[in-house]
């Protein structure tokens, strides 16, 4: 049995802004084994992004606890969280979030500049099939290519986890498949744990594990015995 990379107990996040408080996460208990490809599904507003942000150290819980391996994320201070993100986590966002004034290579270099044991930017871009485009600016790349740059940037530091929030949300199905392939490849080759939020239920067929969200709670966890390759999935 693989070691558990993320564990949450009673994890809650309440937004106090506005007239009424919003319970984005309502006492979530969750265990994520290391090395798995995990898909998070659920209706809009169910708390998926909130969970991912807390696990990635971008946001703080208002109640309960979360651990990364044996370290309590909920007890870390600002500086610890920054170190944690720098050393262990790779992010991929829906809106690629590339720095417009930096080339593909330089966008990856943003990470390799500060990571402890990174691969070279060119190697990371090669892994996602963008070797020939390293000197292009984001404006000169298609949406899929931009998202692959973002993945290269996320994996360049050889992270233990990849947190992806709707990585294919802004892409057509064919490009989406390329991106998912790249993620699956990283997961398979480096045993990097991947948490992928998606609205595309079909993607769940790629996953080791599917977590379904509803109203800030985990409604269902499903473990796949047979997985399919991204290219086999019908959108």
């Amino acid at each position: 049995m693989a070691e558990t990379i993320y564990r949450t107990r009673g994890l809650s996040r309440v937004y106090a802004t506005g007239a009424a408080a919003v319970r984005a996460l309502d006492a979530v208990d969750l265990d994520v084994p290391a090395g798995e490809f995990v898909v998070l599904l659920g209706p809009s507003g169910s708390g998926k992004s909130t969970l991912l942000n807390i696990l990635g150290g971008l946001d703080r819980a208002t109640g309960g606890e979360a651990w990364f391996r044996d370290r309590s994320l909920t007890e870390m201070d600002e500086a610890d969280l920054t170190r944690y993100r720098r050393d262990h986590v790779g992010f991929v966002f829906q809106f690629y979030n590339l720095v417009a004034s930096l080339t593909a290579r330089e966008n990856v270099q943003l990470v390799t500049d500060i990571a402890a044991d990174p691969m070279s930017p060119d190697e990371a871009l090669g892994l996602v099939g963008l070797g020939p485009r390293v000197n292009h600016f984001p404006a000169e790349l298609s949406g899929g290519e931009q998202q692959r740059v973002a993945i290269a940037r996320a994996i360049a530091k050889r992270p233990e986890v990849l947190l992806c929030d709707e990585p294919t949300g802004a892409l057509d199905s064919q490009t989406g498949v390329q991106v998912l392939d790249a993620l699956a490849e990283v997961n398979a080759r480096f045993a990097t744990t991947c948490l992928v939020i998606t609205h595309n239920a079909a993607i769940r067929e790629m996953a080791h594990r599917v977590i379904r969200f509803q109203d800030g709670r985990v409604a269902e966890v499903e473990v796949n015995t047979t997985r399919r390759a991204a290219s086999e999935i019908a959108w």
Partner: protein
Amino acid sequence: MVSALSRKLGRDLVRLWSQAAAIALVLACGVAILLMSLGMFQALETTREAYYDRQRFADVFARATRAPRALMPEIAALPGVVAAEARVAGLVTLDLAGRSRPGMGQVLSLPAAGGPPRLNVPILAAGRLPDPEARDEVLVNAAFAKANGLRPGDRLIANLNGRKRDLAITGTALSPEFVYTLGPGALMPDNAGYGILWLPDRAAAAAFDLQGAFNDVSLALAGGADANAVIDALDRLLAPYGGTGAHGRDQQLSDAFVTAEIQQLKAMAWILPPVFFGISAFLVHMVLGRIVALERPVIGLLKALGYSNLAVAGHYLMLAALTAAAGILLGWGVGTWLSRALAELYAQFFDFPYLVWRAQPGPYAVAGLLGLAAASGGALQAAIAAGRLPPAEAMRPPAPPRYGRTLSDRLLAGAGLGQPAMMVWRGILRWPLRSGLTLLGLALAVAVMVAANFLDDALDKLIDIAFTQAARQDAALILAQEAPAIAVEEVRALPGVLMAEGQTSQPAILRHGPRERRIGIEARPPGADLARTVDAEGRPVALPPRGLLLSSRLADRLEAGPGDVIEAEFLTGRREIHRLPVAGIVEQYFGLGAYMQADALAALRREAPRIGAVNVALDPAAEAEFDAALKDIPALAGTVMLTQVRRSFEDTIAQNVVIMNTIYITVAVLITFGVTYNGARIQLSERARDLASLRILGFTRGEVSGILVGESLVLAVAAQPVGWAIGASIAGALAHGSQSDLYAVPVVLKPATFAAASLLVLAAAAGSALVVRRRLDRLDLVSVLKTRE
């Protein structure tokens, strides 16, 4: 290898170059002016100190009519005195080869023992000291020699107390007493017409009939000695011998001028650079605030990637720092150039043996650090905001601003404005702080222009009052000795003289309560028409039959006003103390003056009226005959040609005003451009979507850009009255800061000054708004709507 973040920084700077340049230029102005005034201030002060120290410039000075040499040991023994030196001094007329007009010379004796004096030691620039035994050798000041093309070995003719003497120049020298060499009655140094002549003691004493006596004494004091006590003691010792009142360095003419200049530089350093630094800080604040708002997703990303809050804040701070660095470098360059130019200007007026402006690290560091502090201060809030932005929040688009229906909205709605006008007003009212600061920035541009033009008008008024209204004579003849008032008839009989009026100046100490001031009381015949006393509007004020008229600055010094009684201790004649009422206040921009009727003065002193100088009006056609006649009048110590004084003053002023105005106009345009251009660019970026939507809805380009340009222009117009008010107070501060006992500048603010300032600033504002409008015209509607913000 260059880090990716540094690359981003570099590319951001390139992308924002026009906004960064506008900020850097404004900052450069502040750095340059601060560097110049601070550097020059320091150069003047250290040079002066070293010069005075090395040449043993005296601390206390006094003149008398004729004091015996035997008094010197007693003077030297006064407590606090470390050195005392007696001299023979006197004014002489000079007949210079190649000059039709007689020049004037100040004779000073060199010690009888030979060698240089012990105090006020001249530095030999060329040649040698005169032989102590020689009767026809003279050392002259270098500036006089240079202006007249004289060299050691050349000769000049001096009318020494009625006897014409042919003197050989043995050398030229500089003296700490004559850094600023101003002849009697002059306003600007005239090195060609006024010279310092050092004669051996024996020759000087013989010329002025002062064998075994002296009429000038200088004292050096021990550090910590009570100068006032020494001055009082010296006054008591010299009183029986016609002492006219000892004074310290503050009333030594040359030093007073250098001090006034230093003070003016200081005023400049404290008044103008803060304006520029304030505006730079505001611009950085505005621009960086906008950049950070636009880059929220990037900030979130950097944090997600593991960059620390400090690194992110530092990244944005660096953007401001690099902009500041460009401004500082430019400011250093311009400031160095300005300092050189100013040093050259000073070389024309001040005779220091070695005033070279050298690039000292201190002023560069201060100007640079303050510039950097201003930019960082402006950047701080935005940078901290970037550092503090929680990463999860940064990843989300910002919540749309809340447009509540506020009171101002209801007022606007009631005003029945169209939608575009509503958008302009909403934009202004929704960010009141930013609108207020923009308005303040533009107001400062107006203020700088007002302050610049004020000087022009002030000097016009000063020249009008000083010359057209008050000192209207063409020339003033200074008599070697006071003469009965009837002597004016002899002058009237000279060729070319149309009018002649006598006057006298009597040294006296005026006291009012605890305040006192040594001054020359000028006495003129009633109804004098050539030299008049005038009020602040230039209207002549008749001399009262009783009492004194005080110039306004003297009245301020004495804290006396009309009706107050002043105690006047005369330092000549019977040396009596009289109580005189202040009959009125008059305006006098040069020096401090006190005036009374000649008859009243004579009656007070129980003497027949006497005169020491004669003011004349000349027939321009007969000037040559007049000049020729002057060379043969033995009783004449010198002649002040006021026509020439006036001309050289006006020329110098005109030249300086042109330079100053060019600088100030450049500065005002830069400020306006910096503020308006950045303001409009920021609005364009904030409202591009709104504006593009309006275009898609069918609004024309003109209507849409009207909204953008409208906001800038509304603020520019509203800034005008504020700018006028600030400008008036800057003008007041500059006038006050440059005022001294030697001169004052009136505050003159004409409607035309305000109008010109407003026109320039509004034009610059409209110009920079139009530059931004061209960008708006090129705006790609589709791409604006597609971009996520």
